[in-house]
């Protein structure tokens, strides 16, 4: 990819992720985060939540895949940060959809880096804020 041919505002693609309860359990095992608010309705309700919610880190980890797919090499991500703005509630049956899209937010020709700005929408609200991945080309 030639950095000189890129422009700020250019879209990098999008993907809709389907979060099921199974996906949350898989992520719990893969990450080691076994907080029961991510798989047990009774526990989630007992701590004042409306229901089981996805790990913020699952949303974060899925969202960056849009950037990874654009560059083709996830090892080129040198900085990635997000704010968790809204929970993604995941029902016991069915799923929650998270729509992720991205565009080029900044280009640093000297450093050879590109900042990709990601948005993640679920049930019409933004679930990540200031989601930015810096790619070293």
């Amino acid at each position, binding site marked *: 990819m030639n950095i000189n041919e890129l422009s700020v505002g250019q879209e990098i693609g999008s993907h809709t992720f389907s979060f099921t309860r199974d996906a949350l359990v898989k992520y719990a095992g893969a990450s080691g985060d076994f907080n029961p608010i991510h798989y047990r309705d009774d526990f989630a309700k007992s701590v004042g939540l409306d229901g089981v919610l996805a790990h*913020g*880190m699952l949303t974060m980890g899925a969202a960056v895949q849009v950037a990874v797919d654009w560059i083709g090499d996830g090892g080129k*991500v040198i900085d*990635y940060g997000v*704010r968790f703005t809204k929970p993604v509630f995941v029902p016991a049956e069915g799923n929650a959809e998270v729509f992720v899209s991205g565009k080029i937010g900044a280009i640093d020709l000297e450093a050879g880096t590109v900042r990709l700005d990601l948005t993640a929408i679920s049930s019409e609200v933004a679930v990540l804020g200031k989601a930015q991945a810096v790619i070293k080309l």
Partner: protein
Amino acid sequence: MVNPNVQGKKYPETPSYLVGREKIREFANAVFSTNPINHEVAAAKAAGYADLVAPPTFGVVIQERSLHDVLADPEADIDFSRVVHGDQRFVLNRPIVAGDELTSVLTVASVKALGAHSMITFNTEIFDVKKDLVCTAISTLVVRGGE
């Protein structure tokens, strides 16, 4: 409330964690990665890496081990059932690859009161066997205040 006196506290280095290929594949599948360098050794090597490459957020697995020590620390006094993840960042000096043996050192960067809530920010530095810094994971937890 989180004890503000833990600001600046550094927790002991975690035991070495050996990054395995199957763990990388498991994590990659869990975050919906289809990037071949996370799944196929040949693809990772063709891209110039020593072995399978972990997805960009894999550092959370190591951070989790350090966080566990903080959450178990009576001095910090964090009620885990009231914890909400506020923000997260990974600064990567290089990607984590299979075969890495990683340790982490967590420092409490700040403790702030936000009304009835507390915000606590951690810097977890992740090192390889040569003691080179591989990744810094920066995490803010919001601890909801009691009624």
